[in-house]
């Protein structure tokens, strides 16, 4: 029974069906499957989605809907995870920098981070450097991830890093950046710990950063 349901959940995530995912999660919980096991299944499903995206079988609309299925599921499971004291791979504070309202890239990165097993704290769009610091102090993430889409907002990626350093938070977190005008060279030149060109790569870089930080 639970095996069928678990397959049904994976299919719902892979096919991008948020309502089916939510219903199946409820059924799985009713049969006694733990929230962390359900999340693991969804992560595996999202991994399949990521691979399909890399192989050009899936495109952004597919990624978005699979992400919506995952997000809807997490809304049910996250409170239960806390009660269960289950652990995530790591946690990330993510947001778009000040003066920038482009959030598609950031949303896709958040989807893939969740799929890689991260707890994601999404600040949304148009965040000051101070907002990133404030949130990082509150949730103590492994990674602060920021994105900028325009060349005019790109310098704020540097401002976030400056504030993280000033506040001492940088000693405790890795800084990951991305966005259309950025390049890996530029990211390294300002002192970021990581850069990614797309959402799938961002999740891989985030995992590497966390592993490196933990010495594994």
């Amino acid at each position: 029974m639970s095996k069928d349901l678990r397959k049904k959940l994976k299919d719902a995530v892979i096919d991008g069906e948020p309502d089916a995912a939510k219903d199946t999660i409820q059924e799985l919980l009713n049969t006694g499957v733990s929230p962390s096991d359900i999340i693991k299944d969804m992560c595996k499903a999202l991994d399949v989605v990521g691979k399909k995206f890399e192989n050009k079988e899936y495109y952004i609309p597919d990624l978005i809907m699979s992400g919506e299925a995952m997000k809807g599921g997490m809304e049910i499971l996250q409170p239960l995870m806390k009660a269960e004291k289950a652990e995530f791979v790591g946690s990330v504070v993510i947001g778009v920098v000040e003066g920038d309202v482009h959030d598609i890239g950031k949303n896709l990165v958040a989807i893939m981070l969740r799929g890689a097993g991260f707890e994601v704290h999404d600040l949304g769009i148009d965040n000051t450097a101070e907002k990133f610091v404030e949130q990082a102090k509150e949730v103590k993430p492994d990674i602060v991830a920021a994105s900028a889409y325009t060349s005019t907002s790109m310098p704020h990626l540097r401002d976030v890093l400056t504030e993280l350093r000033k506040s001492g938070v940088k000693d405790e977190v890795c800084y990951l950046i991305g966005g259309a005008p950025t390049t890996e060279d530029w990211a390294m030149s300002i002192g970021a710990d990581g850069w990614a060109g797309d959402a799938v790569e961002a999740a891989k870089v985030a995992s590497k950063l966390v592993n490196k930080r933990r010495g594994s």
Partner: protein
Amino acid sequence: MSWRDKIIDKEIDFLAEKIRLRAESEEMTPLQRFACMVTGQEPDRLPIAAASMEWSAHYIGYQLNRDFAHDYKKWVHAALVGVDRFGGDMCAPIYDIYNIGPEEMGAEIIFPEDAIPEVRKPGVNTPEDLKKLKVPDPYKDGRMSLMLEACKLLREKIGDVVPILATVNAPFSWAANLRGIYDYLADLKRNPKFARDLLEIVTEAATGYVKAMNDHGFMPVLLADATATSYLLSPKQLEDYGVWSYRKIEEALGPGSFTGTIWGDFETQAKFTKMGVPSFMGITNYTYCDRTGTDPLKEEDILEQKRVAKELGVPIMTSLWGQWVMVHTPREIDEEIKRVIKLAGPDWPFMVGVFYIPLGTPVENIDALVHAIKKYGKFPIHL
């Protein structure tokens, strides 16, 4: 008319005259150069693309706020400054193309002081909202009418020596900005009927806008379609939505009324060109950077593009990625232009440059780009 408006009018006249004098003093005018490229004849040198509308606006001290966004004479002023300052071979009054249309159909737009406008609230949230949508009148409504006026004025001033690229938001990108890009892309999978119904209404609006441009003498009009790209959509979605809308416009207006762009990888563009998609009409064939959007074109990609362009009998319009130009040195830009010209030319017509110059790009980088094209692109080319 205020004294400030009078000064802008004088400036427009002065710049137009300066551009005309220079164009006429050269071996070929930019329009003749462009015509050579389109018809496959050898120009005196490669035509230069340097689209710098926002950059030029900043350069002359305009803030990109609501005031600028609703004053077509300032657009004309900025467009002329770009042509005059850098000596490009086309004038592209491309400014905030993707919100013109969505704004007139109900999207709420914000106008930051130093960036291009953005959608704050989409104009369509549910299928029920479609019933309230009205197709705007391009001659009267909002910035659509202003863009018409801007193109018309530019044509009057320099149209006989410099090609004016009249540009309209393509239906798919228009629908996406009206609905919100994230939600519209989700709708393609979540509720395809809603996505298609919205696209149909918007295609009617875009058809009217292209027709108005045609009536002003612009043939063809460029359709800008940043969202209908192979980065975002599957080939089937591109065909069912992007290409579908192009065909609808062509059915309504006839061949030659527009040419389009799909800003994606070359493989997809070549495929659509081979299919006879009207968007290409034999004159545009954009090259871009690689899939990451951050690295210059690979040698094999340039050669493959040239091979396919030859096979299809179309010229190549090559643009360096604006962000790449912004962050590299004048020397690196010079070397990159030399490399691209050596690989793409000289035995096939092509245009080279940058189709979008981001704000903050150092002036010396743009100068280096233009200088390099003039230096390496003079016929006969020996590199």
